[in-house]
């Protein structure tokens, strides 16, 4: 069992990095690996819980929440969160936490592999 760190700098929708980041995490968790995400830059938009779109049942935030439910750790860069007006992540799905680059440094120290998307 390995610890896989994932740095995600892409937001939901506009670019599809978030989807690959989630798909890798899902597959890794299913194999029993530990997965730790750091959401940086536009990556911090992903866990906003009020996302809705006509005809779409599963939104990016739902995928984030599923990752948490399966045991993934999620920390978002607080400076990026507040720059984007997300007020400390107050509307984040449960389990998506706000921290800072020191948390990312810790993930770098802990992880066996780091994937950046």
């Amino acid at each position, binding site marked *: 069992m390995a610890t896989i760190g994932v740095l995600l700098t892409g937001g939901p929708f506009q670019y599809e990095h978030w989807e690959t980041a989630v798909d890798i995490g899902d597959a890794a968790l299913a194999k029993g690996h530990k997965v730790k995400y750091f959401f940086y830059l536009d990556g911090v938009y992903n866990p906003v819980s009020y996302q809705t779109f006509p005809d779409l049942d599963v939104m990016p935030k739902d995928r984030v929440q599923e990752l948490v439910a399966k045991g993934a750790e999620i920390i978002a860069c607080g400076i990026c969160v507040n720059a984007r007006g997300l007020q400390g992540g107050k509307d984040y799905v449960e389990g998506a936490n706000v921290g*800072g680059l020191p948390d990312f440094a*810790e993930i*770098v120290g802990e*992880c066996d592999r780091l994937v950046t998307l």
Partner: protein
Amino acid sequence: MGQKHVLITFNRVPYGSIFYTEGLRAAVGVTSGIDEHTVDLLYLGDGVNFCLKDVDRTDSARYLTTLAAQDVNLKAEKEALQDRNIAESELADDVEVVSRSQALELICKADVTIDF
């Protein structure tokens, strides 16, 4: 946990997006944690445009100063410079030109890599 050596690559031109400066902020963040990771900064492809001496460093100067204090300089790939007709005389003083083979050595030396 443990100290690691991190290679951060910069692949985009400066100013159309914020990766050129937020990548440096991340570099500072990574090196100032309790594990005291070390970093190399490698400019590849279009990223080498950041190494031009006349680039406005208003947004990035403080990160570069912090990193310079840890003896971290900017490494630019020679082949990328040549492809863009950028002469070494056009580069800033804190830029070191490395060959693609040396870039590859940096990859091999790193425990983890991050791309911006």
